[in-house]
């Protein structure tokens, strides 16, 4: 049986592609249903083709407001977590000091804890302090949980850096600031960028911690959550599709640029 033999030989590839299909399937469903015109409030069953939602993505009350709020929070959370996380990563890799182990555990713990526990405990802090829940509490929470991921990403990169490059810069009479800006930072940049990208994605998509600490502030995931009960507008699928396409194109463009650079550097 040649067919059976072919299947046996390519079992891993087939299984892998099936998993990939399982992962992509919901994205395709989201895309297809962005062209739907549902009869009722819910967009779960296919009725007929329509471009209405694509023509008017902000046609639902609060949707684009929540989207822009989420983007703002993600932007500031990324900035904050990347700055603080990069500093911690450099300190941990480049310096020996006391309490290093304790600090490593403090960085690790937020990643090893169910989100709902962090969310609930942060809420008890805010309630005890009498803080007004809203933009600021969400931003504080997002910086908190993105921090560990940034540290991990940047640390991985800084660890693989050759300190002799910086020594060489110093030997060539570069000052500490100059060494940092012209040697250290460019080499660490991919790690910092990866950390920042991760922080942005995590913050933008976070639901559980936001759900606890947002009060009556509605971020985009909160809007989607609410609409799951009240009726989902097709526009949600439009935005989901647009985000998916944008993410893929950004990464692909990055790949192309990286490949170009490599080719240019070679000859």
């Amino acid at each position: 049986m040649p067919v059976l033999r072919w299947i046996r030989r390519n079992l891993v590839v087939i299984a892998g592609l099936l998993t990939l299909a399982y992962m992509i399937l919901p994205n395709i469903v989201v895309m297809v249903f962005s062209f739907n015109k549902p009869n009722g409030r819910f967009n779960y069953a296919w009725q007929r083709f329509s471009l209405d939602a694509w023509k008017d993505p902000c046609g639902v009350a609060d949707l684009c407001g929540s989207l822009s709020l989420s983007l703002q929070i993600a932007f500031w959370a990324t900035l904050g977590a990347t700055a603080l996380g990069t500093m911690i990563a450099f300190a941990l890799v480049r310096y020996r000091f006391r309490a290093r182990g304790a600090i490593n555990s403090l960085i690790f713990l937020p990643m090893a804890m169910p989100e709902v526990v962090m969310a609930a405990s942060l809420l008890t802090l805010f309630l005890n302090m009498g803080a007004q829940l809203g933009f600021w509490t969400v931003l504080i929470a997002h910086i908190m949980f993105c921090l560990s991921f940034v540290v991990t990403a940047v640390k991985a990169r800084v660890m693989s850096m050759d300190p002799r490059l910086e020594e060489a810069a110093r030997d060539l009479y570069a000052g500490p600031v100059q060494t940092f800006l012209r040697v250290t930072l460019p080499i660490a940049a991919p790690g910092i960028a990866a950390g920042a990208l991760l922080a942005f994605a995590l913050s933008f998509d976070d639901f559980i911690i936001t759900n606890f600490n947002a009060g009556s502030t509605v971020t985009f995931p909160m809007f989607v959550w609410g609409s799951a009960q009240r009726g989902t507008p097709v526009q949600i699928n439009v935005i989901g599709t647009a985000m998916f396409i944008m993410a893929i194109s950004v990464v692909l463009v990055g790949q192309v640029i990286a490949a170009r650079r490599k080719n240019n550097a070679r000859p």
Partner: protein
Amino acid sequence: MSLTEAPPAPAPQPEEPRELKLRKPSTRKRLVPYWLLLPGILWLVVFFALPLVYQASTSVQTGSLEQGFEVTWHFQTYVDALREYYPQFIRSLLYAGTATILCLLLGYPLAYLIAFKAGRWRNLVLVLVIAPFFTSFLIRTLAWKTILADGGAVVDVLNTLHVLDVTSWLGWTESNRVLATPMAVVCGLTYNFLPFMILPLYTSLERIDGRLHEAAGDLYATPATTFRKVTFPLSMPGVVSGTLLTFIPASGDYVNAELLGSTDTKMVGSVIQSQFLRVLDYPTAAALSFILMAIVLLAVTFYIRRSGTEDLV
């Protein structure tokens, strides 16, 4: 991705970068790491560690929202919470455990495919694994409602193949339904946390030297033996960190149970959420989340000990 760090070791660690020390650093220079750490660590202490202390104190309080809460060292809350909500705890661990195993079974071939077989498609497949991170996971979870809908294609196929007869006999589904059953919740959990399994697996598989496979082949190992004796053991760090990255968030998740399940599939996350945000019974909610944290930390410690990789870098 490093998941755990080794406990503070007295011996100098090998990954320490070499640094030429020509003269003794000045005091100002010695303080540099502390200044670098200060803002971030302060943030974590105030908004991560301190809240846990507040929560511990909340869990032993009694009172009501009108009269205010007071610390009375009322440990009974823990006993009551466990007695009332143990089904949700067991369910959470069961669902999260099943989803983790499924993630490993589904994710391993894909990670293997990316690491060894994808060739020039590697980056595209990686993008397809990561891209869902950038589409709201809530939207994608809602899409499963469409996919698993009653009378939909998936349910029809499973019905024709008599799969649903078996699964409903096992109690995973209800006659001819997938939505609002344990199977739907586990399917959603598996789906949502797959990237967290695939990426660490891929990272550790990618580090394996391809020549080891050739060497195993030269020594007359069949592909299956090569996998069992060479590839899989070397990918253990990825398996362990992938398992943790899947199991921990899955055990506290309530989104899948709420969107794809029914009242019979509620997980402990939903209970904590409704106690905190709807019932406003803060002591019970705090006790519940402390119990969850303890269970998860115990399970993780046990698992790391058993798998024998203390240092997962």
